[in-house]
């Protein structure tokens, strides 16, 4: 029911929205909950386990009950807090976790059987027969579980991430936060003020009290006006600080457009901020806790502070006849506010025996609510007083169990809050978050005047830490009442008393857990699920702890507390994962020939971050194999070109370049002649092969190293490590030149013919023998030419500055075609290298050492190198290690399968009999046979032996012969020719 003359909503702007298909009106500034309450809708949700009817418990983001689903289709958003979501015109809201509807929910039958669904019941049953768990019990349990539902569709909304920096981050904009922000800002510090709510002001928006001689919310407006005019202040409302991390890093979620209808198409829904703050002031206030009295969960029962918020901020009376129950003075304040607004106060029930009269309403002291009635909403309460029982009709009950300072963020770095016996709550431990000062109610300072002063002092502390001068600021006049509270953790009685409303954990469950020796607070939590609902126990943990303490005969401080972990409030996956949809997950790298290659119809495949062509289909070719076979034959008989720019290229320069390379490679490079190229093997210090490639010596002190595409980054890092950490006195520098040069392999018997049509001056075998390198000129542009081969053919790699990459590729392709050649892709490249027995990362897959691939002789005996000592460990040179061999089917047409394993002929295909596995397979159009590289125990000593290849996964079995891994031209005549 809307109360005239109350509230900070804009009554000039009416907004229509729907809830469960029915249309309602609210005003600008309303949340779903305030608008529904204004329409006298109290039933908003069902609980998790017992499907109990529920209304809002709170008026903020900590809400455990009133969770709803917004929107439909791909935008369907479950578990939205009706108490925090602002309404906008056309908003579509649905209740969740009920069937067929909210009023008549079939699953509420669980409530009738609640005695059999007590804490941990599922650990004790559903075990017989065993197979029934997956087939029967679990599906039933799963279907019942969960609150809202995802749509199952891709989330197409745009979200974003950003970074921010400041001297002082102020978290919360109640009196303490505003005062802290004002003090820091006037002192010239770089300030961010973050407020979870849609409006700055905190509790000042919800209380009837003056600050600086004017209504609190007007004082807020003045402060915000001043702050927003300052360059050194960034005001961030609708921004929740969700995590506190090391060295002053904070995670924050800014809700940008979820409260708007028709936001700009480029505007994100939410922004995830990483804020780096030199200092922070936590002024997150406090949350009022419910009281665990019997049947305390009906719609209409909510915290007293929520009742005041609905009344004072939103101008809504959550009931026509409101009762108030509490153990502290806020209960009185609530009753007074209601009465002053003309709402009937049915009774004020104060558990304390001695609280005096308060206002013009009935007051029962030393009394407790011990029962309630009303199936879908509160109708009546039963009160136990010294004089006996009394039933009172009421449709709303405001309960005030005292305040819990919002310590959550202070726990994010393992700080455990400490118990304050006077406040009856936990307060943050000093220094729990380095650089964070806690102020106001979050620190247990409960009066407005105290909070203002505390905010000011916190700002001073923060300013001192960043060496800023403090401006002369004084805190304004405000309410300064003492906080009087008496313990009231649970009320005995017949019915269940809820602690964790959403998860349906009652005081009985906690007591049962204790009886079953789940007495550690963590055990109790995990056994009962107390505090594991979407509010992370914000509303219930302290109460549950008190009940556990009582059940185990310990004090609350001895019982301990569970910790709060990030995030402070749940964060959408799409927000935390913003930008990662589709291609956004990792940057893409493109070779200069990319566009031409795509145009030619070549499927592109990922190679690390790069894209490389798989094969180039020609007309009439139906399968990749046809294209690949053609490309292989083309290279073997004519000439092919392929872009090899993705291979890492590292410029190594300096007086010690040669010596350095000797140290990182197993073999010698200081002896390499200028103008020559050598293959190198690089080990990790653990003795396993890290990478391989060729390195060319361009000058006395100048080498260029190539790495594999996959290994480029790792190798660069490794070189820098070795240089800076092991041999910093060596005078050598590395610069990646991968991007500077577009590089193309030109392979095949006609490769030189082709090149001579491109190069400005011709080359021949004498000027450019196998493994020669040097500068060349093409169209007047200086490039580099390397006579190296990864195909076993007479081949070159030609490099040109990248701006000419596409042009050179086009020129090479044109000339190749004129020679019956063309482009070849990764598939053909793979066949060519397997035929020749060249290894790639398929073979050097991390567990392989030089001995395993038959390259132990490449570890020079003349010098030390990285990995040399480890490679010599006894286990690393054992004959029966899995070692590289070639494999061919005894019947050439029979398939070989990469990933298949080997077994001796006649032996069963079991793990115990395993003889090795295949790493690379191809069909060789040259040999007219499948070929494979693989690792076989003691392989090099088993040449000619027959061995069974078994691929059980795909049902292929082939008898193979172990052979040398180089299938063709073992002498390398073609390469040299």
């Amino acid at each position, binding site marked *: 029911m809307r109360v005239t003359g109350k509230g900070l909503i804009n009554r000039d702007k009416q907004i229509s929205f729907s809830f469960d298909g029915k249309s309602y009106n609210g005003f600008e500034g309303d949340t779903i909950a305030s608008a529904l309450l204004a329409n006298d809708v109290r039933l908003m949700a069902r609980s998790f386990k017992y499907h109990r009817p529920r209304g809002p418990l709170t008026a903020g983001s900590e809400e455990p009950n009133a969770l709803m689903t917004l929107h439909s289709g791909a935008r369907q958003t479950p578990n939205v807090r009706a108490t925090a979501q602002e309404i906008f015109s056309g908003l579509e809201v649905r209740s969740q976790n009920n069937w067929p509807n909210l009023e008549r929910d079939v699953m509420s039958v669980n409530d009738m059987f609640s005695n059999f669904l007590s804490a941990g019941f599922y650990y004790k049953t559903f075990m017989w027969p065993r197979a029934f768990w997956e087939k029967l019990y679990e599906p039933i349990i799963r279907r019942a579980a969960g609150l809202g539902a995802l749509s199952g569709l891709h989330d197409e909304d745009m979200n974003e991430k950003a970074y921010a*920096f400041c001297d002082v981050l102020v978290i919360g904009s109640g009196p303490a936060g505003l005062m802290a922000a004002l003090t820091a800002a006037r002192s010239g510090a770089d300030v961010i003020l973050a407020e979870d709510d849609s409006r700055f002001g905190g509790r000042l928006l919800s209380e009837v009290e003056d600050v600086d001689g004017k209504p609190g919310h007007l004082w807020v407006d003045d402060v915000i006006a001043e702050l927003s005019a300052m360059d050194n202040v960034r005001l961030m409302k609708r921004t929740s600080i969700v995590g506190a991390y090391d060295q002053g890093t904070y995670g924050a979620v800014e809700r940008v457009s979820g409260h708007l209808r028709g936001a700009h198409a480029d*505007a994100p829904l939410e922004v995830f901020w*990483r804020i780096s703050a030199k200092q922070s002031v936590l002024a997150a206030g406090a949350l009022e806790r419910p009281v665990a009295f019997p049947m305390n969960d009906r719609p209409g029962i909510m915290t007293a502070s929520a009742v005041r918020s609905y009344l004072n901020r939103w101008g809504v009376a959550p009931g026509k006849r409101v009762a108030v129950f509490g153990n502290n003075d806020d209960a009185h304040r609530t009753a007074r506010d209601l009465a002053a607004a003309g709402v009937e106060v049915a009774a004020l029930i104060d558990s304390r025996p001695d609280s005096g009269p308060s206002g013009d309403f009935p007051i029962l002291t030393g009394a407790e609510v011990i029962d309630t009635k009303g199936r879908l909403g509160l109708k009546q309460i039963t009160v136990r007083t010294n004089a006996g029982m009394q039933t009172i009709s009421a449709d709303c009950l405001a309960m005030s169990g005292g305040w819990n300072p919002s310590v959550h963020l202070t726990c994010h770095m393992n700080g455990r809050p400490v118990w304050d016996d006077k406040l009856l709550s936990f307060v943050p431990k000093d220094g729990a978050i380095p650089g964070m000062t806690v102020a106001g109610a979050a620190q247990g300072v409960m009066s407005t005047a105290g909070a203002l002063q505390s905010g000011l002092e916190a700002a001073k502390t923060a300013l001192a830490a960043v060496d800023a001068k403090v401006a002369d600021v004084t805190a304004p006049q405000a309410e300064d009442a003492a906080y009087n509270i008496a313990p009231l953790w649970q009320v005995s009685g017949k019915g269940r008393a809820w602690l964790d409303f959403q998860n349906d954990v009652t005081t009985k469950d906690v007591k049962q857990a204790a009886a079953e020796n789940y007495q550690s607070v963590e055990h109790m939590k995990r056994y009962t699920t107390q505090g594991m609902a979407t509010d992370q126990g914000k509303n219930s943990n302290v109460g549950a702890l008190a009940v556990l303490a009582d059940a185990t005969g310990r004090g609350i401080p001895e019982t301990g507390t569970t910790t709060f972990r990030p995030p402070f409030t749940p964060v959408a996956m799409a927000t935390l994962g913003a930008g990662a949809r589709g291609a956004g997950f990792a940057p893409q790298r493109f070779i200069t020939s990319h566009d031409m290659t795509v145009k030619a119809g070549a499927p592109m495949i990922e190679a690390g971050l790069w894209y490389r062509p798989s094969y180039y289909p020609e007309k009439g070719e139906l399968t990749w194999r046809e294209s690949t076979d053609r490309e292989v034959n083309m290279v073997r008989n004519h000439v092919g070109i392929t872009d090899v720019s993705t291979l890492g290229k590292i410029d190594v320069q300096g007086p010690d370049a040669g010596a350095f390379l000797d140290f990182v490679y197993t073999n010698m490079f200081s002896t390499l002649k200028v103008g020559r190229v050598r293959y190198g093997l690089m080990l990790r210090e653990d003795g396993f092969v890290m990478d391989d490639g060729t390195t060319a010596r361009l000058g006395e002190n100048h080498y260029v190293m190539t790495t594999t595409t996959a290994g480029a980054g790792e190798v660069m890092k490794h070189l820098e490590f070795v240089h800076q950490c092991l041999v910093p006195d060596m005078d050598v520098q590395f610069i990646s030149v991968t991007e500077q040069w577009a590089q193309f392999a030109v392979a095949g018997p006609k490769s030189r013919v082709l090149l001579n049509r491109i190069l400005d001056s011709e080359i021949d075998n004498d000027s450019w023998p196998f493994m020669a390198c040097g500068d060349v000129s093409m169209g007047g542009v200086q490039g580099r030419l390397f006579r190296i081969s990864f195909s076993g053919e007479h081949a070159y790699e030609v490099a040109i*500055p990248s701006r000419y990459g596409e042009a050179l590729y086009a020129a090479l392709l044109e000339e190749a075609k004129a020679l019956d050649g063309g482009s070849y892709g990764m598939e053909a490249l793979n066949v060519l290298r397997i035929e020749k027995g060249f290894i790639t990362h398929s073979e050097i897959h991390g567990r392989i050492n030089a001995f395993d691939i038959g390259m132990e002789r490449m570890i020079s005996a003349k010098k030390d190198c990285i990995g040399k000592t480890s490679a010599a460990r006894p286990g690393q040179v054992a004959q029966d290690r899995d070692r590289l061999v070639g494999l061919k089917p005894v019947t050439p047409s029979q398939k070989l399968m990469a990933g298949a394993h080997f077994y001796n002929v006649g032996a069963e295909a079991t793990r115990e009999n395993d003889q090795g596995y295949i790493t690379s397979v191809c069909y060789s159009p040259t040999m007219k046979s499948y070929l494979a590289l693989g690792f076989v125990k003691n392989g090099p000593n088993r040449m000619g032996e027959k061995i069974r290849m078994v691929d059980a996964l795909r049902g292929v079995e082939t008898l193979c012969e172990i052979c040398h891994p180089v299938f063709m031209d073992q002498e390398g005549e073609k390469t040299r020719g």
Partner: protein
Amino acid sequence: MVNLVAKSPCAALLPLSAGNVTLTEQHPDALTSVAPFAEKEVEVSASLTVTHGVAYPAVNHAVGKDGARAIWFGQGQAMVMGGKVSDDLVQLAAVTDQSDAWAVMRLQGASSADVLARLVPVDLRSSVFAEGDTVRTELQHMMASITCVGTDCFDIMVMRSFAKTAVHDLHAAMKSVAALSI
């Protein structure tokens, strides 16, 4: 003789604009990585002063102006933008032509720092990052060099092959910042 036509890293991708921010490609005459050998920094600096009128830059700084600028580019390395360095420099430093290795983009406009704040984990607001300041950092998981070359004006360098992704990411941030300021 074969005719080779050059193509710049951001060809067909730039310019772009959104709101008050524009993104354009820069075409420096040459990019030369200069990494002085041991104890040769002073001599390298002298050489650069002769050829480019700039000293070897201090850490996190760039010196010079459009046409001749030396940007600190990481430990022991400067990127010299502009004409060719002296041939003799190879005696003093590892000199590497990087003219084709990097895409150079200029982000300009009142909200340019806000745009970068969506992509770069370093504070680039004018109050702390002014003309002549430079950083090596990341731009959405890509290695980047970012230099403030004037008021609300930044030169951004990413490796050439990342140009398309970098332009896409910058443009997305530009559009979003523009949408939020409406």
